[in-house]
């Protein structure tokens, strides 16, 4: 009964492991306890036994079926979800919720709009057609009378006598206030209410409409002009009349380059024009924005891929190629730079125009920039770095060794279990006697075996899965015993039958397992020997390869060591310092506790008070400093924020102080510009990003590594020459430096955004240092 497994085969509920009582599923820490528990609690529990037995037998059968079919994943992953809300109800436990009710009015809306739009479209098109007629002849060279005749033919003019007052302004018409006709609709208005359509506008409207009307099936196209005198005839006539000049032109100015129309028609035309303009005009911001989105999409697509690669590489696996990962990283980084550049461009778009753009437009630009920086921050920071080539080799090595070790362990475990199994099979007593006693020592070992268990090895995982079968057998044996004691013959018969079935199945498995195991053993033996050989060879190689490098006085090599490429010392150092740093902190921690005397003092406070903070366990045992009735009182003298003994608060305070002292600009973007400029000045002329790209392109370590010194990674004996190894080392370092510079830049930006000036200072100093090193390296290289 080493590990009960009630629900897993049903696939529901959680998987319990340990020494579980099969009846009450209570976890009892050891086998003996379980035995005791069982005898005490359930021996008299006749009522349940029958049902339980059936249940168990069924389970065993199911288990057997599964095992024989070798159904791989019969243990569903029932990760228990950790509840967030302790009080109240955890909303995450609520049933999934679909979108609430909605109701659409689109159809109704469209129906009503369509009626309206039809009307509107017809009106517009009518105007355009008339406009076309009015402009299709040479107005400049025609005399006024002629023009007037044509104009009158396009639309029937309203009778003068019908309109005594201007319909727009209400003024009475007389000799001085003359009537004017709209050439587009024929209505009358006074001079002041009259408007003109300039010819260029008319042309534009006509040509624009013609394009859009080319769509087949449009109802307007088929509409025939209302009055006679088709447009085609007009053009041919114009030549003959041109010489004539009329007196009327003296009375009424000739409408050479414009067409009179009423307010209403003008309005419609203007609307139309606006629409036409907007159709082909896409503002710059849209173009930039589209590119920005494209870059973001690319990042969304590539970044997860890269992270997967980097994770696997950092774990020393060789699923992916280091070079491709490096390339991908570069690509993603380039996209980030592009996003940064584009969003900055959007931000500064039109900023220096003379009439400054609408504040809302500026706000939009700022928001886009802000979103882009958020995006970069979030994604770029998640971009882990790649191991260097050497480090990668090492990682691979380590992983291999680990695997070997595991393999060995597995082998041992397998041998042991095999031995045990054989033993137990031999010694297996008749079921009616003391089956349990013999099982006793077996149980702990089984759990041990499963502790070693990896996932990959099929032979071994099977042996673990086998346990349940054995356990079932045991269970049934004990039940059988009980049933016999209780003298229930029917149950005994049923149980015996089941037991037989189970044992058959088990025996079958045992034999097949034994065969498989012996085969594997032989295989492994040979494998191991090969492995050992290889290991030895590698060790030799390693010693020879690293020997000169460690001894070398070249500064770049020591750098290398700092970078942790040979991790042994570096890591140890780090650990030491960490240890040192941690201990004083631990010493100090009680003092931080004092910031909340309310919590600690509860030890001393009257029981009533304790009842409120009843669950508080005083952390440092530092309860002696307060005897006051009200635990909060103490804070009067030492307010939380000013407690000097608390290092943490000091920090926060310092941060706040510095923030408030230093000039704090709220527009992060201006500042950002400053930083960039600074940086540009520091590093080199030109865009730092561009420069960087050049660098990394020129010095792509992976390309060179495989091209110039192919031996380094594979066979160190060829590459013994110092001169060949070193530049490679240099370049890799550069890559790392560049990565660091990148990251630190992101942080500077980030820190600026949130206004932590001290951090910014610190970071920029580091940045300078890095850049300095980088340049030195470069010099050395050349």
């Amino acid at each position, binding site marked *: 009964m080493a590990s009960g497994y009630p629900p897993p085969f049903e696939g529901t509920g959680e998987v319990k492991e340990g020494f579980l009582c099969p009846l009450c599923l209570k976890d009892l820490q050891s086998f003996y306890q379980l035995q005791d528990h069982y005898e005490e609690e359930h021996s008299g529990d006749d009522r349940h036994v029958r049902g339980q037995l059936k249940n168990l037998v069924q389970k065993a059968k199911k288990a057997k079926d599964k095992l024989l079919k070798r159904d791989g994943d019969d243990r569903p992953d029932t990760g228990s979800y950790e509840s967030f*809300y302790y*009080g*109240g*109800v955890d*909303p995450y436990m609520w049933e999934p*919720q679909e*979108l*609430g*009710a*909605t*109701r*659409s*009015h689109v159809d*109704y*809306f469209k*129906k*009503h*709009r369509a009626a*309206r*739009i039809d009307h509107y479209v017809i009106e517009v098109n009518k105007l355009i057609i008339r406009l076309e007629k009015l402009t299709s002849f040479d107005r400049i060279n025609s005399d006024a009378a002629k023009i007037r005749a044509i104009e009158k033919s396009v639309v029937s003019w309203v009778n003068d006598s019908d309109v005594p007052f201007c319909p727009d302004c209400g003024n009475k018409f007389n000799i001085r206030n003359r009537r004017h006709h709209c050439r587009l609709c024929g209505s009358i208005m006074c001079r002041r209410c009259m408007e003109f359509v300039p010819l260029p506008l008319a042309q534009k409207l006509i040509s624009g409409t013609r394009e859009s009307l080319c769509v087949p099936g449009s109802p307007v196209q088929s509409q025939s002009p209302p009055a006679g005198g088709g447009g085609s005839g007009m053009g041919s006539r114009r030549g003959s009349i041109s010489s004539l000049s009329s007196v009327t032109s003296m009375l009424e100015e000739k409408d050479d380059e414009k067409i009179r129309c009423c307010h209403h028609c003008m309005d419609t035309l203007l609307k139309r024009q606006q629409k036409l303009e*907007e159709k082909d005009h896409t503002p710059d911001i*849209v173009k930039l*924005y589209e590119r920005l*989105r494209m870059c973001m999409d690319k990042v969304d697509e590539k970044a997860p891929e890269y992270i997967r690669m980097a994770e696997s590489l950092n774990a020393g696996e060789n699923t992916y190629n280091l070079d491709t990962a490096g390339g991908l990283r570069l690509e993603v980084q380039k996209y980030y730079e592009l996003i940064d550049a584009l969003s900055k461009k959007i931000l500064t778009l039109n900023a220096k125009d003379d009439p400054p753009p609408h*504040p*809302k*437009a500026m706000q*939009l630009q700022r*928001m*886009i920039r802000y*979103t882009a920086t958020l995006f970069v921050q979030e994604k770029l*920071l998640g971009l882990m770095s790649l191991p260097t080539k050497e480090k990668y080799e090492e990682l691979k090595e380590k992983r291999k060794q680990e695997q070997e070790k595991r393999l060995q362990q597995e082998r041992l475990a397998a041998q042991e279990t095999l031995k045990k199994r054989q033993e137990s099979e031999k010694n297996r007593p008749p079921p009616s006697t003391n089956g349990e006693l013999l099982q006793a020592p077996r149980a702990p070992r089984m759990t041990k075996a499963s502790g070693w268990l990896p996932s990959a090895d099929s032979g071994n995982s099977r042996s673990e899965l086998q346990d349940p079968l054995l356990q079932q057998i045991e269970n049934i044996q004990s039940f059988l015993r009980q049933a016999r004691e209780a003298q229930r013959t029917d149950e005994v018969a049923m149980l015996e039958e089941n037991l037989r079935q189970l044992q058959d199945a088990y025996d079958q498995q045992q034999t097949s397992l034994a065969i498989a195991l012996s085969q594997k053993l032989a295989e492994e033996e040979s494998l191991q020997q090969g492995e050992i050989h290889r290991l030895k060879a590698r060790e030799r190689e390693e010693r020879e390869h690293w020997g000169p490098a460690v001894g070398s006085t070249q500064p770049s090599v020591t750098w290398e060591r700092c*970078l*942790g490429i040979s991790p042994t010392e570096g890591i140890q150092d*780090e650990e030491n310092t960490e240890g040192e740093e941690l201990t004083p902190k631990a010493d100090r*921690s009680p003092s931080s*506790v004092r910031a*909340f005397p*309310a*919590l600690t003092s509860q030890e001393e406070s009257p029981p*009533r008070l304790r009842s*409120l*903070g*009843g669950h*508080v*366990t005083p*952390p440092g045992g530092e309860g002696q400093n307060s005897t006051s009735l*009200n635990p*909060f009182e103490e804070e*009067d003298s030492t307010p*939380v924020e000013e407690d000097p003994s608390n290092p943490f608060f000091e*920090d*926060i305070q310092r941060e706040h102080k510095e*923030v*408030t002292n230093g000039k704090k600009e709220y527009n992060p973007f201006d500042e950002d510009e400053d930083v960039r400029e600074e940086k540009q000045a520091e590093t080199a002329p030109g865009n730092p990003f561009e420069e960087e790209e050049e660098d990394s392109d020129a010095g792509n370590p992976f390309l060179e590594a495989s091209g110039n010194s192919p031996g380094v990674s594979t066979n160190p004996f060829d590459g013994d020459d110092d001169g060949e190894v070193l530049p490679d080392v240099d370049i890799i370092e550069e890559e790392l*430096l560049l990565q*660091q510079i990148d990251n630190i830049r992101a942080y500077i930006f*980030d820190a600026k955004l949130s206004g932590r000036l001290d*951090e910014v200072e*610190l970071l920029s100093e580091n940045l300078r240092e890095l850049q300095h090193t980088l340049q030195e390296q470069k010099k050395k290289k050349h």
Partner: protein
Amino acid sequence: MNVTLAVKQYISKMIENSGTGMKVLLMDRETTSIVSVVYTQSEILQKEVYLFERIDSQSRDNMKHLKAICFLRPTKENVEHLIQELRRPKYSVYFIYFSNVISKSEIKALAEADEQEVVAEVQEFYGDFIAVNPHLFSLNLHGVARGRSWESSMLSRCTQGLTSVLLALKKCPMIRYQLSSDMSKRLAESVKQIITKEYELFDFRKTEVPPLLLILDRSDDAITPLLNQWTYQAMVHELLGLNNNRIDLSRVPGISKDLKEVVLSAENDEFYANNLYLNFGEIGTNIKNLMEDFQKKKPKGQQKLESISDMKAFVDNYPQFKKMSGTVSKHVTVVGELSRLVSERQLMEVSEVEQELACQNDHSNAQQSVRRLLQNPRLSELDAVRLVMLYALRYERHSSNMLPALMDELSRRGVSERHRKMVKSVVEYGGKRVRGSDLITPTDAVAITKQFFKGLSGVENVYTQHQPLLHDTLDQLIKGRLKDSQFPYLGASSLRDSFLEEVMSATGQSGDRAQGSSGRHGNRR
């Protein structure tokens, strides 16, 4: 049954419907708070919504490269604004969503204004309430009642809000109301009317046990809001003021600039989510743990990062560190301020007496304690008035009522006339005459024995003895023991089995807004 999620889903659906491209969200005053409670700015920015505008704002510019998502309440003014907007559209496409039922005639008016064919969508998305917590919503109404009856505009707003909640959750409930309150009845009838009228909207999949809408009147339990609470959210609400999950800390002495207003939202703040309902003492411990965690994660000093490996470590930890530092400084400030207020106003002692008043039945003791506290010069005016209010409610009909003497005490303390009047108002508002269920003395045998046992076993926490009436009411409801005589069903239905799905204590205070009586968070099931 998660109202926050319901609104969130509505809004993301709106944004999703509008496709890609730069967007502007056009809202009115109320929908602005509806949206801002459930979405943070950065969250919504990620969905390409870059501008947030009020429909009634005059300073909007033509931006034809933007798509407009309009989320508006279906009010007359909004429709009028929208008609103007459509006549001269400033954006390229309009996706219009109303937060409640809108009439056909208004749709028609809109359709006729849309000559440029800029409208792509007209829908009703029923997010007409402010989802404060997953299980709590509010309508942020003030002055809902005049005397003991509804302000008619408020009644309709309340009805709209409630029906929209029902629609957002897809529930068509049975309705029960508190018989003693006329306002509850009116609201219940009003909701029922809407459900009948819009029956096709409420045509949801029938559940075995129909959901229940229980409408209660705050005046039935005027005591609970007068007590000081000791859980995190409730304390923040009571002492600092929590408005749409925002706290205004500008009055806190020595506050830094970026902490003037902080947002406490369980959605985005894990620490807050975990500690929402924990009591003050526990929060102290947790915040200490949080700080220790923070110290561990803090990059090794703000000192110079010496080597590349230092930098590497820093770089790796930086994002977490930054996030954490925000949380830590926020909560440390809030809890610090809370404990400052607690000690300054001597709330521990006040709370003890309050609980004694609310839960024990010892008049002479209680009145002595109240008097003693009233002598205390450090007691704030508000707390003094609240104590007297509690006393007045609790011992309203007691034979040796000391209220006049206590009132004298108040005026001797120099408590303002306005505050003193509140005592009388509170009795009028929530006194014995008004209450439907007996708040103070248990009547049935079970309750009496329960109290007896409680007395025997001793109280485990003096500051949280009081159990709000709501707790009992809901308890009875779940057990199916809520009396029909007190909480009748609306309509002829005789279904007995009810299942608690929803609670809404609708009515607030009338003109005499007694302090601290705004509905309290927490204590919801």
